[in-house]
């Protein structure tokens, strides 16, 4: 009572709580949060891989500050990184293993959780075979943990029906690199942003998703020409000299027509092609199907702009193309990646300063799992199908080569389909949240109900964890040791700053301890493994001599030098060093196929999904961080004023969005010119407005990546519940028929004045 009165009278202005104090390392900082120690680590959000320092006070993380000595971010961090210390004390943490008892998940001991799960796995294996256990993991774990988990699933559980959520974001890049260069592995690096004369950003909204990369562009002294290719006028487009507003999913046609023009004009790099490539003849012939006049109809981009783009790209001393989900998350994702690679090898824009086809990864350790994870290949970029690779791996780790699978198991979407068919009976989900992130949510939710057992291993109570039968309560970033590898192949250290809370343990420990429940699995696979570094050491041995060679990397070396890039600064710097059998890169004849999008009459708009800088993926980590949430507390729908007028809505109103698969209700309207008429944008982070209810079960056949970015939808406002009326459009010209169409979409061409 007295305190209440005192507080009301404003006796105490909490001066101490808001005072500043000197810190040896960072100068004046908040006295209230002054750490006892700073621990150098790496950010656990996206694939940029920023070096940071975690401030720890009384065993709690209180600060995350950009490490000024780290070459990736040179002291800066994005808003998520700056507030990352808050995730550890999130109210959304899972603090103990849980087992479902009826409708409730109740706390359990590790032994109970392990025993129940292992018994069920064994029972299912007995009755339906080992492959009836599926596993979906993530890009969030540490490399040591990926290696451990992959080895345990493939060799211990004996199931190759193992995939990661990286299939939802990077698998098209992986498969595209493989088909072009013979191996996965992004050839370029961030330094290329500093040296490029031309930077193409295709389907990459780095302003929202990888803001720290802007630092590297800002460092570029050449005043590079920036081209942003995206159907949506993103924040990133704001930094463009040329913004190319192509029609949704017409990127592959555009890329092919650039090649057409380059070849037509003789701008290709003949010497490079001769020395480094295969399949040029076929490619040249194939590309004749993409004359700019036709592609202008497909893409909505004027012929003269196409010529300008080709000239800029081919004419630059060093040109780089960076891309992310706009390219990858497409039914043509793999081939679109290869079309980008084609341009690079056509002009020799690879393996030199400022020139590369560069995929920017989404998750902090998507790269680590691509290299070591045992999902789409045997660790160290080895092929399941190659007996030599299998034998080599088996002998390196001392197991019988017969237990190494000789083919890749089901991809993410195939695992879900196998559950639907009743073929997979148990699913183990690790640090990912399909019930927000996967396409066609209603179908997925139904499928998960068919499972005999759903095990979720996570540090946060996700929508998926809520329906689990067993939960393994994991530790998270800042609580465990290991390494992350970023987009530019830089291996960074992630360090333990604080203890694992309550009854949680690191994912490494979760897996190794779990393996004890399977007869002699621990002895065979993890003999004498006590700490993550033991896994790292085996992984070093396994990767030795491979493209992703970690053998010379030690924890000490990483810490000393602010991360170490495997393969050096750039890949393929010497002639004919690609990972194909003859060292030459392949030209890929990739065909653009028109988007088929259900019944356009009923659903005449195209929904594009994506992210916002304030939120991370399905918000398991960010939903309890106030400073991020008050800027982006819920999903919104961006619609063009033309459509808003037709629907009689204004900014701040709400409307419903429907597709063939369902409806998302009461999404707040943002009327904006950043989207074209008949196209809308909604961020996918929010389970409250679960936009993946609408997205289709449509996947890239090569990579298995979902086609998230183009969904036919209808909008329903209060005043106009029937929605937007369909207008007959001349069909986008199909190449073979050479249909002529008059395009009304203006293009934006702004040439930067030389300062």
């Amino acid at each position, binding site marked *: 009572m007295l305190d209440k009165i005192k507080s009301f009278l*404003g006796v105490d202005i*909490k001066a101490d709580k808001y005072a500043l104090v000197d810190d040896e390392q960072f100068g004046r900082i908040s006295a209230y949060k002054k750490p006892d120690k700073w621990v150098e680590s790496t950010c656990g959000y996206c694939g940029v891989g920023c070096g940071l320092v975690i401030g720890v006070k009384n065993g709690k993380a209180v600060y995350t500050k950009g490490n000024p*000595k780290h070459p990736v971010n040179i002291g800066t961090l994005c*808003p998520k990184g700056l507030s990352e210390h808050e995730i550890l004390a999130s109210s959304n943490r899972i603090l103990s293993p849980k087992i479902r008892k009826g409708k409730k998940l109740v706390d359990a001991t590790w032994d109970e959780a392990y025993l129940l799960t292992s018994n069920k796995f064994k029972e299912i294996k007995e009755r339906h075979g080992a492959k009836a256990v599926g596993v979906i993991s993530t890009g969030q774990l540490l490399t040591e943990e990926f290696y451990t988990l992959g080895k345990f699933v493939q060799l211990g559980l004996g199931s190759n029906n193992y995939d990661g959520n990286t299939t939802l974001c990077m698998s098209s890049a992986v498969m595209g690199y493989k088909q072009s260069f013979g191996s996965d592995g992004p050839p370029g690096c961030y330094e290329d942003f500093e040296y490029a004369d031309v930077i193409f950003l295709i389907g990459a909204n780095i302003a929202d998703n990888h803001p720290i990369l802007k630092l590297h562009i*800002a460092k570029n002294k050449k005043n590079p020409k920036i081209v942003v290719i995206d159907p949506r006028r993103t924040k990133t487009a704001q930094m463009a000299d040329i913004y190319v507003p192509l029609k949704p999913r017409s990127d592959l046609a555009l890329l092919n027509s650039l090649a057409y023009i380059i070849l037509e004009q003789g701008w290709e790099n003949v010497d490079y092609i001769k020395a480094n490539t295969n399949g040029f003849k076929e490619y040249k012939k194939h590309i004749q199907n993409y004359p700019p006049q036709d592609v202008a109809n497909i893409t909505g981009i004027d012929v003269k702009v196409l010529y300008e783009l080709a000239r800029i790209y081919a004419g630059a001393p060093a040109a780089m193309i960076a891309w992310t989900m706009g390219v990858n998350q497409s039914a043509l994702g793999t081939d679109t990646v290869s079309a980008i690679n084609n341009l690079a090898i056509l002009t020799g824009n690879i393996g030199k300063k400022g020139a590369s086809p560069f995929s920017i990864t989404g998750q902090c350790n998507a790269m680590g799992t691509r290299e070591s994870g045992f999902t789409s290949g045997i660790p160290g970029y080895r092929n399941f199908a190659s007996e030599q690779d299998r034998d080599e791996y088996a002998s390196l780790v001392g197991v019988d080569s017969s237990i190494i699978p000789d083919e890749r198991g089901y991809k993410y979407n195939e695992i879900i389909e196998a559950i639907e068919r009743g073929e997979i009976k148990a699913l183990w989900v690790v640090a990912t949240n399909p019930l927000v992130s996967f396409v066609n949510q209603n179908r997925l939710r139904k499928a998960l109900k068919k499972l005999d057992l759903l095990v979720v291993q996570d540090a946060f109570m996700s929508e998926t964890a809520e329906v689990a039968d067993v939960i393994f309560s994991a530790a998270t970033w800042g609580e465990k040791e290991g390494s992350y590898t970023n987009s530019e192949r830089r291996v960074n250290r992630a360090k333990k700053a604080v203890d694992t809370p309550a009854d949680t343990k690191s994912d490494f420990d979760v897996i190794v301890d779990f393996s004890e429940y399977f007869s002699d699995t621990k002895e065979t696979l993890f003999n004498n493994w006590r700490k993550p570094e033991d896994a790292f050491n085996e992984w070093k041995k396994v990767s030795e001599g491979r493209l992703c060679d970690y053998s010379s990397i030690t924890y000490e070396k990483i810490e000393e030098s602010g991360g170490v890039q495997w393969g050096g600064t750039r890949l393929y710097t010497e002639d004919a060093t690609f990972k194909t059998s003859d060292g030459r890169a392949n030209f890929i004849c990739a065909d653009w196929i028109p988007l088929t999008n259900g019944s356009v009459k009923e659903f005449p708009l195209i929904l594009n999904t994506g992210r916002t*800088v304030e939120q991370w993926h399905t918000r398991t980590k960010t939903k309890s961080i106030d400073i991020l*949430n008050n800027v982006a507390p819920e999903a919104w729908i961006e619609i063009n004023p033309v459509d808003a007028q037709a629907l009689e809505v204004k*900014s701040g109103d709400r409307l419903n969005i429907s597709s063939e698969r369902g409806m998302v209700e009461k999404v707040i309207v943002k009327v904006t010119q950043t989207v074209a008429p008949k196209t809308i944008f909604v961020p996918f982070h929010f389970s409250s407005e679960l936009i993946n209810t609408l997205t289709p079960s449509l996947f890239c056949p090569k990579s298995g990546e979902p086609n998230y970015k183009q969904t036919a939808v209808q909008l329903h406002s209060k005043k106009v519940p029937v929605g937007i009326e369909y207008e007959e459009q001349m069909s986008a010209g199909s190449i073979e028929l050479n249909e002529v169409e008059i395009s009304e979409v203006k293009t934006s061409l702004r040439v930067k004045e030389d300062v």
Partner: protein
Amino acid sequence: MSTPLEQFIDYKVQTGMQCGNYDIDLPKLKDGEQYRFHFDATKCIGCKCCEVACNEQNNNPADIKWRRVGEVESGVFPEVSQLFNSMGCNHCVDATCLQGCPTESYIKIDNGIVIHDDESCIGCQYCTWNCPYQVPVFHPERHIVTKCHMCYERIERDQTPACVQACPSGAIEIESVNISDWLEGKIDDEGNAPLTADARITNSTTRYTLPKNIEKDLKSADEHILKPEHAHWPLVFMTVFTQASLGGFIALVIGELLGIFGFNLQSPSWEMALAVWIPIAIGLPLSALHLGRPLKALSAMKNIKNSWLSREALALGLFATFSLAIVIFLFFDVNPYIRVMVEIPTMMVGTYGIYSQAMIYRIKARPSWDRLINVKKFFGVAYIGVLLLAVAALKFDLVASSSSIITLALLVAVIQGFFYLEDINSFNQVENSYKLYKKHFTIHALFRKITFILGALVAPMLASTLIAANEVSIASTVLIFAVGVALLSELIDRYLFYVTVVPLGMPGGFFIGKARD
């Protein structure tokens, strides 16, 4: 291969960018110079690193934002421009926060940074009204106002302010500016940002680099958010009550004077003086409830030189004290000449008090307040005090006087009626406020209208007629009713005054708006 530290030093030398570095090399200030922010809108990508870094630096909770990022859009797809404005404090040459602060809690230190002294702040929030950018923000947990101080403690130690350090685009920098050069003209070219208050209002120092050819059809991302402002209930009551007291008091003094000059008027009774004193006796202490730190209310009188708020506090404080003295004089039947000698200066101080009170709201940052008619209306509330005086006269058997007092009250009420009409006409010109009013407050306005006609005009006239008909007790009831209804009417009007103000500021964000409640 150089070490990471060497690479970092190279980076600093080569790029000259202040971002990323925790240490800063600022030029030494020459005479007539100060530090300021430079914001490069062509570099900003709207990532909000600065916002979060600021809160992390200062341990501020999420809803106390010293630095805010606003968003403006223009053009037609695909020729669209999205512009961001990241704003902390503009460290103005003529800082209105500083000028208006009654407790002198703002200090423009030698290097030009405007800092805030937390200890002396009483949480009156007048600065939050005065600043045309809404930079100062009331911190409920601390009961005081807080604001961006350009991390001056860091700058003094050659350390980089948090926002500058955090920006991955190098869009925020600290630089020095020659103040007279700036004010002589550069400010008009480089000091203004889209949809943001004019830099000349306070002679803001922030320099903007904007894209060339900004389009005209600018649209703020928070355009759809038009929220009523705080009602400030303690102030609603305080202002109306003090204004009524002054009106009653003036009427009383007029009566005294007329008596002295030989008109055949009964001398006022002490009860009448008490009746007009009561409202201010309630109203003034109420105003302390508006403060974050009511115990320090008296220090509001500190800045008499510059602050209308200090002047109001002092003048109305004196008025309340001396008008109480008059009650006592009347009680002891002190000689009327001596009474008038005290009454006249008291009346003048009171008038100055209400004038100061009105001038508090004559601020450029709040256009619907910044109209002369509001000053007139503040004085127009006097009629309620006069009516109150009439009630007292009637209750305490001065029936003859009461008739003439009612006549005076009606006269003032009619004038207030004209002010009321004038107000409606000029309020309609204040675009955003009018929109807000139309959206939320038409019912209130109707109620105000009816109560005004009833309480200020019809009921007093009826009372007057009843007195003429010798129905004194009914007349008294009707008159009390009139006071009550008229008071209600003026309180609603004052409430509308507060809630319909739409401050100038900066463009905000789609969800968070301007981050100022």
